[in-house]
């Protein structure tokens, strides 16, 4: 966001112009030529810029590099990575693990100090949740739940950093795009959901056997004693259960992504107010504060929901019929 300050200066002028037609916004066409201030983005450019990941991949001409703009990024197709998503998620994950590891190394049965107390409180909270909904014996579930909860929470909390700070800092450092909330990138949420999905299938097969798992997918919800009838109901069952199975990772990831993406979008829209003069600016400040307070709830809730559903799905995977 090189042009953040310009946006502040010029948005008032731009806003007073005729609002760009929807089609222009969608196609990212400049609504009108801007001879004197090419750097001043329209609101739609500002929003689009905020929603663009820092994409590294193969250009159409075969060379590798950073995509300049959404169109170039789209052309790269699957063979591209979002450097910002990878960086921020890895950084936050490492912070989480280092802090927890530090406490884990020094953890003792003595009276805990401040940080240890807090970490233990979190661990205890996760443990209670896992004990509450997971009845099987599996040493993976609780650490998985802890990782998911804290990691997602940290990634979500990047949303509370004012939307222009880090992108602006990146712009100063010469980085064109910077999306700092990894959970607003479906790649990140789908990756976690895929991990959970893989574990669900793995443990379903491990606990119930291949036959049990396939039977679960094909012999219910419509059951029959007659072999012919069973065979007839098989496609219906497979269809229903298959959708149920696939809906788990999709709903997991899309719920998280949708909530955070929407939340960030509102922050961006509020940030647009800052370029509308000091009255709108103050109003925007108040709005941003209010939305941030409300967003704390969403941030926590989404992390908690993702974790809880993961536990529930794994519990279902461990249940024999």
């Amino acid at each position, binding site marked *: 966001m090189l042009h953040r300050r310009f946006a502040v200066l010029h948005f008032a002028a731009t806003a007073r112009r005729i609002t760009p037609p929807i089609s222009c916004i969608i196609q990212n066409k400049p609504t009108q030529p801007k001879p004197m201030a090419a750097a001043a983005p329209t609101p739609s450019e500002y929003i689009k810029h905020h929603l663009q*990941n820092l994409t590294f991949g193969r250009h159409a001409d075969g060379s590798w590099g950073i995509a300049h703009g959404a169109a170039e990024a789209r052309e790269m197709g*699957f063979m591209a990575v979002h450097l910002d998503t990878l960086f921020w998620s890895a950084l936050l994950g490492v912070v989480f693990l280092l802090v927890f590891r530090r406490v884990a190394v020094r953890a003792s049965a003595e009276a805990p100090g401040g940080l240890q107390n807090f970490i233990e409180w979190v661990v205890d909270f996760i443990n209670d949740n896992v004990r509450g909904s997971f009845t099987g014996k599996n040493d993976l579930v609780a650490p998985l739940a802890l990782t998911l909860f804290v990691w997602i929470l940290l990634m979500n909390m990047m949303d509370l950093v004012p939307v222009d700070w880090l992108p602006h800092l990146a712009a100063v450092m010469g980085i064109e795009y910077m999306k700092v909330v990894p959970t607003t990138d479906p790649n990140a949420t789908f990756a976690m959901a895929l991990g959970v999905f893989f574990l669900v299938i793995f443990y379903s097969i491990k606990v119930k056997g291949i036959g049990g798992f396939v039977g679960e997918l094909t012999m219910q919800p419509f059951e029959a004693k007659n072999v012919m009838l069973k065979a007839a109901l098989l496609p219906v069952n497979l269809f229903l259960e298959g959708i149920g199975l696939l809906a788990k990772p999709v709903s997991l990831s899309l719920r998280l992504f949708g909530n955070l993406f929407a939340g960030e979008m509102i922050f961006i829209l509020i940030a647009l107010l800052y370029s509308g003069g000091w009255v709108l600016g103050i109003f925007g400040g108040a709005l941003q504060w209010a939305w941030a307070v409300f967003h704390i709830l969403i941030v926590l809730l989404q992390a908690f929901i993702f974790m809880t559903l993961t536990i529930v799905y794994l519990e279902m995977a461990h249940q024999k019929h």
Partner: protein
Amino acid sequence: MNINLTLIGQTITFAVFVWFCMKFVWPPIMNALEERKTRIADGLAAAEEGKRAKADAEARAEEVLGEARGRAAEIIAGAETRGAEIVEAAKTEARTEGERLIQSAQAEVAQQTNRAREKLRAEVAALAATGAAQILRREVDAGVHEEMLGELAGRL
């Protein structure tokens, strides 16, 4: 918002984080929590045990105290008896001593009486001699008749 290789990268990152958490974070913290839980339970049990021991000790102390009280009463009674005895003995001794003193005083008196009588005798003899000398005047020579007068006084 494209799905691309980031998905794979994120999946690997996720797997590594979960693995690390499972290996190096969760077990030590959980162990510490479990250990503290056991320790607290042990502490509570020990406190309960201590309370019971205290109650036992109190009962025992009460018992010992009662015993001691009985003993003390016994000792006091014994001392009183012994004191009375001592007083009685002292009284008897004093009485004996008094009697002895009276006897010795009586003996002294008798002795003094005798001594006074002796002296009186001597004086009476001298007085008689003086009286006789005055009666006889010159006829009696004190030097010549002293022997006779002494004999006379001895007869008194």
